[in-house]
Every structure is written in structure tokens, then in C-alpha cells.
């Protein structure tokens, strides 16, 4: 939470100072304003789950086109995964989400994948083609999906992982922790 407040305060402070200082104050003032108004795009991830979990990372290398990635780790045997990635639509929107073959090849008939793209709610699903197809062991972090984002407006907003269910071939559930994060967008929308 501390991280959330810092850039906001900086932004507000910069606006206030730029209005109160005389324009002939010289280079120091300009430098001061530049330091405070430049919002650094970034993604502050929540602590990663220590056990079975799904978490999100966002690459903000291109501040105008951040890319979210969804990861799964330490789940053990997995028959199917379903989850939603929810966004604050006033800041970012999703488009062209791509799910990775984390449970086997789709074309080879091992698994089936689902992407329900929405501007602020991306549903993802991955499942083995029937209990006879067995489960896939997921231990080390596995990329589940890649979700390119479009910046709608400056600011910070939460990226959440919701409605996660991980099931085994007998239909039982694996309890999962999730981790989202705070995405700060910059640049000109």
C-alpha cells in the first residue's frame, strides 16, 4: 500500500508546486517539476504465493503497451485450470489475450484452451481432454497466458486474478493462492 501512495503524492505535489512557483525561478524549478511529474510506469506485484498459486506479472517496458503474463506454480497434478484476470477498465484494457499450451498440445489433442477476452475481464481456461488424458504436473512456474494491454489513462490500478479453480482428474480441487499487483501506467493514452 505504501508503494501506491508514493507516486500519487509525487504527482499531486508536482502539480501544486508547478502552480505556486514563479516562472522565473530558473532551471532549478524546471528540474524540480520534471522530477515530480514523470510517473514511472511499473508493476508492483503482490508477494508470490508460497504454495500452489497463480500470479500475474506485467511487463511495462513499453509504457504504452504493457503486457501482462499469468503464471502457475507448485500446483502438482493438474487436470484443468480456470481463472479470470480483472483489470480496472478506466486505466487499462485487455486485447488479444493468448493462452499458452501449459497442459499439453491443443493441436495434438491433448488439451483444450479457452480465452474469453473482455476489456476488463479476461477469462482463461485450460483443461486436459478428459480424465483418461491424465494430469500434467506443474511445479516450477509455468506461463499460462499472455495478455497485451492498452493504456486507457494514466494512473495506478489493480490487476487481479479471480475465480481461480484448479482441479484434478477426479474433479477434486487444489486450494490455490493468488497474487495480483498494482499496475502504474504512464505516457500519453
Amino acid at each position, binding site marked *: 500500500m505504501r508503494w501506491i501512495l508514493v507516486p500519487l503524492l509525487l504527482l499531486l505535489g508536482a502539480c501544486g508546486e508547478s502552480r505556486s512557483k514563479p516562472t522565473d525561478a530558473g532551471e532549478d524549478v524546471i528540474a524540480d517539476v520534471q522530477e515530480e511529474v514523470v510517473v514511472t510506469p511499473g508493476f508492483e506485484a503482490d508477494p508470490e504465493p508460497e504454495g500452489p498459486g497463480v500470479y500475474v506479472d506485467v511487463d511495462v517496458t513499453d509504457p504504452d503497451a504493457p503486457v501482462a503474463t499469468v503464471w502457475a506454480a507448485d500446483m502438482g497434478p493438474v487436470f*484443468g485450470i*480456470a*481463472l479470470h484476470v480483472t483489470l480496472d477498465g478506466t486505466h487499462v484494457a485487455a486485447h488479444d489475450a493468448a493462452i499458452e499450451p501449459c497442459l499439453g498440445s491443443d493441436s495434438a489433442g491433448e488439451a*483444450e484452451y479457452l480465452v474469453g477476452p473482455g476489456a476488463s475481464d479476461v*477469462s482463461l*481456461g485450460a*483443461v486436459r481432454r478428459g480424465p483418461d488424458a491424465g494430469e500434467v504436473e506443474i511445479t516450477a512456474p509455468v506461463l499460462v497466458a499472455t495478455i497485451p494491454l492498452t493504456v486507457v489513462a494514466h494512473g495506478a490500478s489493480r490487476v487481479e486474478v479471480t*475465480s481461480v*479453480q484448479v482441479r484434478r482428474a477426479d474433479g477434486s480441487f487444489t486450494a490455490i493462492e493468488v497474487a495480483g499487483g498494482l499496475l502504474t501506467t504512464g505516457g500519453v493514452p
Partner: protein
Amino acid sequence: MRRLATFLIVFLMTAHAHADVDFLDQDLTVDLATDPSEVTVTASVRISMVTDTDSLSLWQAAIPLVSIEWEGTPLTVTERGWWYSADLPSTVTAGTEGTLSVVMSGVVDCPYPGGYVTCVRSADLTFLMPPWEAGSWYVMNAEGSTFDDHTGSIAITQPTAHNAAAMGITPVMVDNGDGTSTWTFAFDRQVSYLAFVAGNLDEVTSSDGFSIRGLYQGDTHVRDLMQGMVDEAGLFAPIFSDLWGAPPVEEVDYTTFSGRTPFAGTSIQGLIFLADYIFTPTYSYLISAVSHELAHLWWGTMTNAASTSEFGFFAESMAEYSMWRAHGIVSGEDVRDTGSRMNAVWYMYGRPSPTSDTPVLSPLGTEIAIFAVYHKGSTVVRTLEEAAGAEGLDAGLRAMVEAGPDGANIVDFVDAVDAASGVDLTPYVDIWLRGRGFPVVTVTPSIVESTDGATATISAAGLDFPMQLPFKVLMADGTVIEDTLPYDFGSGEVVIDLPDLPACVQIDPGWTAVRELSPSVDGDVSFDGRVDGADLIEVALKYGGAMPSERRVDGAYDPLYDLDGSLVIDDGDLSTVVAAAE
């Protein structure tokens, strides 16, 4: 398609008239030692005249008639189709008792429609069942609107190494010292259907529970299967006893039988015949249904309905229901659910055409009645169980068993359930048992997230078939929340608070009713109001299920997940979910 049915079906079709005479007791001797291809039966029948009588009406003999005497006087016999008359020397006044002595000897012939046989005689195996069409191996009164129950005994003489079983009676065996033994089965309970098996039969016995003997001819594969069956019966019989009353037999005997037999399984008192072909791989799926025949000891033997339209319900529907209920108690509810689904689905989609149907309360004897009585009927009993509660239902069923043969009827059953549970099943009987068809129910979920969880409102609408539909809310942490959706007059709604958004809502996962569920949003098989990965998983878990082409084959088919209507849950259904989510 081979049918697993009971012998009782044809009996009711052949009873007629009122009785002028009453069989009190019948002692039979059966000689299987003298000639390996023939049978000699002597019968001594104690008879009481109900009215002044000058002739006896008897079922046609399955074995050539050698002699027939009344109190030592030979009688004149006249063939009359499936029965014959025996003229008494003079009119015997009402209230008189006397002994009818009959000797039959030769090759047995027990015809059955379609060329099937219900008796076999060879050096290694003899089984004689009650008559279906004509030809009784014992003396059977052909008069009366019901069959003439009596006490008696069967004494079978055969090679000493051979085995025998009859009607759940523990035998007394005497070695005659000449290479033969006589097995005597004495029955002091009133019965009219007599049957036995004898021959070179190996034996296994139940490991636990009720005493079950399994007689068989075959290899170790047959032995192992028979052992499994008698072990299951040993566990199931005490369950049925606890629920509805102890049976009137000391043991239950399973036996293999061979030849062109009409049924895969036939239950006669405590003797259950199992056709040898069910032990082959092709028909091995029938093994799981064998306890249906055990349940006929309660439903068919201890009680049955006099009404032909209710007979099937209290015999076949109940036997099928009982078997799956016992499976649930012994092996878990999932196993029971499998049977309910299989029966419901076979009725809904296995019929020759959607318009071909008949009420559950219909006479047996037609192909469509098999669908309605066995498959729909057994599931409807489970619907009644949900409505009245297991204890309420069992009170009604106990009352029917206590009513005895010909004593079961729907009105008394409903009254007994009402008295025990306060639930009036009349609307259920009128719609589910007297009516045709099944409901297609559209389920509309509305799930609203709140600060402390979520509230789910589940609505259902469709045809007016009353039912109490259990449902399960599966949470992603594995928690399961159970409740019931009441459905009456074609609609129902339930509101339930949840600790979080649900992972999945399963409506009637145990198939407690014959119904088709249809989500209001296409593809939303998880009933959470949206189509997403949860639905994909649900369909994938049912992947491979297929509508069977044979009765009693479990195709694991659940139509809810057959989104493209192909009768197979496969890639097409997964693709349908994916498309619906886009």
C-alpha cells in the same frame, strides 16, 4: 438385447377364475439318479375342497404324466390346452380333505414363448422352474385368481457328488449308500412357485453378512465372478432386511444356468438363476445388476401388487431402486448416482422414439414398459425419497412388505408415507407414475458478489413435475455446500449465501429425478451465470461419456454436457464451450 427380468411377469397373465379347491401341502420326490436324460417326479398333494367339487383343474405337466389318483383311485384326465382336468370319482363335498397322488416320468418339456426354455435336464445339470406358458414339473392348481400357496417339501435324489439348491432353503442331505444322496428342502412357508437346481455344481459362499451360496459350472473366472456376486449379496441382504424386514428364507442361492433361457437373471423365492452368458466378456456389464434379482426377494416375493398396472412398480421399479440404494450404502453415493443416471438416461433417450412412452404404472410385457417401469420407475422412487425423506419412504415401503403377496398398492403406500413423514406424495404419483414423459428444466443462476461473499439465486422453470432437486455448490477451496431446490408447478427458486463466488454449481448431480437440465446461458454447465474455464473443466471431466446402445450399459452419459447433441461428450462439446466464451 437380453433382458434382466423376473419370472413373475407371465404368471399374472395366466391366472384365472376362483378356486374350488385349496392346495394345503405338496411333498415331491425327484429322481435324478436313475436316468441321466429323464426325470421322475412323484407328488403327494394334500387338498381341501372349498366348494363341492367333481373335477380338478391342473397345469399341464412338463413331464409325461404316468398316473394320477385321488385317495388311491385313478382319475380320468382331459387335455385342455395349457391345463388339464382330472375328474374325481364322485363329487367331493366342501370341507373335505384328501390326497392327490401324481407320478410324472420322462423327458421334461417347459416351453416358453420364442422357443426359450425354462427347464433343463442333463447328466450334469438339472434346473426346473415354475411354468410360464405350460408345463409344470410339480402339481399346480390351475384354478383361482391367485396362485395357490401351500407348504411342502422337495426331496431330490442324485449322484452323491452333485450339489443342489432350492428356494433359499438350507437342505438336509442323506447319503443313501448306493452312490446317491437325497437332498430334502422342506418349506413351511406358503409358496406356489417351486424351483430347484441340481447337478455337478461347484460352490462358493458369501464371506460376510447373510448366508449366500453360489453354485456354478465353469472355470476360475466364473468362480471369481460368482464369489463377487455372493459377497455383494451377503452385504446387500442385511441392508434390505434392516430397511424393510427380514426375508422368509434361511439362505439365498445363486446358480448358473445354461441353455436358451429367456432372462439373464430370474429370482424365485431365494433361488436366483443367472444365465451363463453373463459370465462372458460380452455381457459382463450385467454382473453389476445381479443384485436386482436379490431385491426381488423383497419386491416380488415378500410383497407384490395384485393390480397388473402397479405390479411392475412394486416388483421391477423397486428391485432396481433397492439395488442401487444398497450400492450407495456399501460403495458410496457416487456408485448409486451412476445407477440413477444410467436408468434415467436410458428411459429419456433410449426409447425407440420420443413419442413412444407409457406410464410407470403400466402392465409389464411390452418393450416400452421396460423403459418406463425398470428405468424411469426406479428413478422415480428416488424422487419420492427426496420428497418424503428416506425414513418416510421406508415407512411406506415397510408397510408394503408387511402387506405381503398381492398386498402392495399405491394408495396404501402413499398413506403410509404420509403418516410417517407428513408428506403427501399424491401429486408425485399422479404426475410421475400415472403420467408420461419427463421435464426439461431451464436453470437460471444469478450470483451477486458481496463484501462478505456472494449470494446465489438459482431459479428453475419447466414442465410441472414435482421434485426436490438437491444441488451442490463447489467452492474453489474444495468446500461443498449442499442444499435443495424445491420445484413445483413448473418452477422453483432458492437463494443461498456463499462465502465466496462459487467454482461450480451442480444441480441434482445424483440424478434423483428423470429430468433434463438446460442452462439459461448456453454452455453455462457450471451454473454460475457465465461461460468460462469453469465450464470447460466441467465438460472435460465428463469427456468420453456416450449414450449407450444397450440397456444397462453405463456410458457415463450426462446430457447436460453434451452441448452439441451428438450423444457423445467429446471435442465438439469442448469447442462449443470455447466458442460460447469468446
